[in-house]
């Protein structure tokens, strides 16, 4: 499949000028505490994913999209943001949500779509939205967020705010209309936007070569007159560095950057998918060896940033937090039927008032509707 190109930015596997492996140099701006924090975020993401996939298999939540193997892309990039920056994620960046300060509990409520879910059970699991963290509502339609992120960046510039927007998407999304439009608008207006493509080399069952005939995703930046950068997406430090550099350029008025983070989707596309139908096993095995958590751990060990005790604390506290959140979420009921009608508009218009009243009257007279036990996604 896609070979690792020569110009792949890597921190954890640096090459000397002669192509030999060289000593790892921590990127400027990072320190021990920050590296440990990124490690923790990746572990939390992994634990959340693991547990959520199990909950789905047990029928306790309806659907899930794991990001296993791609934690470095989300965490490394989002960790480079400041608290005025806006984030337009796809469904495969729970690590970014954690990195910008969303709580595991809030995310797990969303998976249950219960009455404490801030999005009121309106969307399928993993379609998070957190206003406080400027973590914009995840959409299912692929690519739509890309151009929206540009709008926010343009507004930030009009408002002269020292902030940027970042948007996440996959290799498949580069085929979407909005990829084209988003990158083009951003370049024309020199909008302070970072386009982070997690190139995990598959779009459900379609390999990268069926998505595009270009050698890389990064080269697509040339079409828009913007810089394109290719980074080892399983190297959280390299992702952090590439994002930080792009962010600095954006703040300096130099416009957007396309970052291609080369990675791999270790798990299924979603809880509905069976990759053994289409994906060669060898490819999976090759990539399993590049696990982003293991790679960072190896470096941290060598740099004296990692101990068994640290590991234990990180893993156990992540598990505990997830467990507690699941436990609580399962005590919370579904949203009330009346919430079906709110938030369509700021003020409920007469026809919705009428529909709401009629439904509540019917429920009162005959009892509520029953959940269809046969319904499962996808059928």
């Amino acid at each position, binding site marked *: 499949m896609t070979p690792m190109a020569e110009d792949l930015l890597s921190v954890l596997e640096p090459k000397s000028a002669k192509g030999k492996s060289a000593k790892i140099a921590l990127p400027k701006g990072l320190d021990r505490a920050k590296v440990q924090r990124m490690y923790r975020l990746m572990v939390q993401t992994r634990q959340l994913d693991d547990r959520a996939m199990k909950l789905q298999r047990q029928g306790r939540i309806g659907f899930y999209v794991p990001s296993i193997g791609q934690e470095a892309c989300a965490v490394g990039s989002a960790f480079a943001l400041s608290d005025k920056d*806006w984030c*337009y994620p796809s469904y495969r960046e729970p690590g970014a949500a954690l990195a910008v300060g969303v709580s595991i509990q809030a995310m797990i409520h969303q998976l249950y779509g219960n009455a404490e*879910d*801030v*999005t*009121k059970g*309106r*969307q399928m699991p993993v*379609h998070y*939205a*957190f*206003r406080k963290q400027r973590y*914009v*509502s995840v*959409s299912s*339609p692929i690519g*739509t967020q*890309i*151009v*929206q*992120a*540009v*709008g*926010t*960046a*343009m*507004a*930030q510039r*009009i408002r002269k705010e020292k902030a940027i*927007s970042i948007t996440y998407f996959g290799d498949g999304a580069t085929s979407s*209309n*909005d990829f*084209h*439009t*988003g990158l*083009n*608008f951003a370049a*024309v207006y020199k909008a302070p936007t970072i386009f982070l493509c997690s190139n995990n080399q598959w779009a459900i069952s379609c390999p990268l070569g069926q998505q595009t005939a270009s050698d890389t995703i990064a080269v697509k930046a040339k079409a828009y007159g913007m810089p394109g950068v290719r980074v080892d997406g399983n190297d959280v430090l390299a992702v952090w560095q590439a994002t930080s550099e792009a962010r600095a350029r954006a703040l300096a008025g130099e416009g957007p950057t396309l970052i291609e983070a080369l990675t791999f989707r270790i798990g299924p596309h979603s809880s509905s998918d069976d990759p053994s139908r289409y994906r060669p096993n060898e490819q999976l095995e090759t990539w399993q060896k590049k696990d982003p958590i293991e790679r960072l751990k190896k470096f941290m060990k060598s740099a004296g940033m990692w101990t068994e005790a640290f590991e234990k604390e990180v893993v156990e506290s992540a598990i505990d937090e997830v467990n507690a959140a699941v436990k609580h979420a399962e005590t919370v009921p579904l949203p009330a039927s009346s919430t079906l009608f*709110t*938030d*369509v*508009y*700021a*003020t409920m*218009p*007469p*026809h919705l008032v009428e529909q709401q009243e009629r439904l509540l009257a019917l429920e009162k007279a005959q009892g509520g509707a029953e959940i269809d036990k046969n319904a499962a996604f996808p059928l």
Partner: protein
Amino acid sequence: MTTMTLLQAVNSGLKDIMQDDDRVVVFGEDVGINGGVFRATEGLTKQYGEERCFDTPLAESGIIGVAIGMALYGMRPVPEIQFADFIFPAFDQIVSEAAKMRYRSGGEFTCPMVIRTPYGGGIRGGHYHSQSPEAYFCHTPGLKVVVPSTPYDAKGLLISSIRDEDPVLFLEPKRIYRSTKQDVPEGVYEVPLGKARIARAGKDVTIVTFGAMVSICEKAAEDAAAKGMDVEIVDLRTLLPLDEEAILTSVAKTGRLVVVQEAPRFCSFGGEISAIVAEKAIEYLQAPILRVAGFDTPFPYSLEHVYMPDAKRVLAAVERAVNF
């Protein structure tokens, strides 16, 4: 007060609201130095600078997608789509994104913006410069759809739309952009969304219509009056959310309903009016509910005058209703 055309009223509304609210930003194809192909945005770049009124690349999905991102952030974008016929590349951003943002995020994110676009026939624009696509948007919960029919309403409704907290599609009837003038106040004022206007009071038949069809119906009503039929015209102004009350009140009075629109008939907005009345006021009806609409064909060029509802066709329906 100044006497203005509908087009001038739109321009005036934009100017005044941009003065009033610095969150308002206008953009689209050719809206800057060129002032829009109809000149609705004339002078805005000059007055407010290129950051507040600017041209975009030729991509409607980009225009709307960018507007959404701005709205989420806290601006009040007022993107222009050059002709309503060209809104379809942006359809996904409008119906999947702007319309659903508030709901799907449980109110965490909202999308106040106004998409202005000239619509409708009667300008010899053929297939792709004449369509009336309101039905597509009226079927999309989360959107509001507004159509003025007079200069005064155009300005007031536009300002109300821009001040509204939800995304609004603002359809401008281009056929009457310059056809009549009316006194329009200077400065900002509002005409409330969701409220119809009785364009003409009458007791025999109700016509429900909007946009450029209002004046056609007024003409038909005069012809009807000459024949002894007293027509009431309800100009909806806002199609979604609809002023059901105004319609039902009028129908309860007249007992007869004709719905008039330019768009093709099948599965159209006008059908919704019929359906509501057939559900809620059937007991008042003394005649079938009739619709005068565009034919169920694409919009033609050479035969535009045959295609579009005119006073004759409206009158024929009024007569059918009265003589039933």
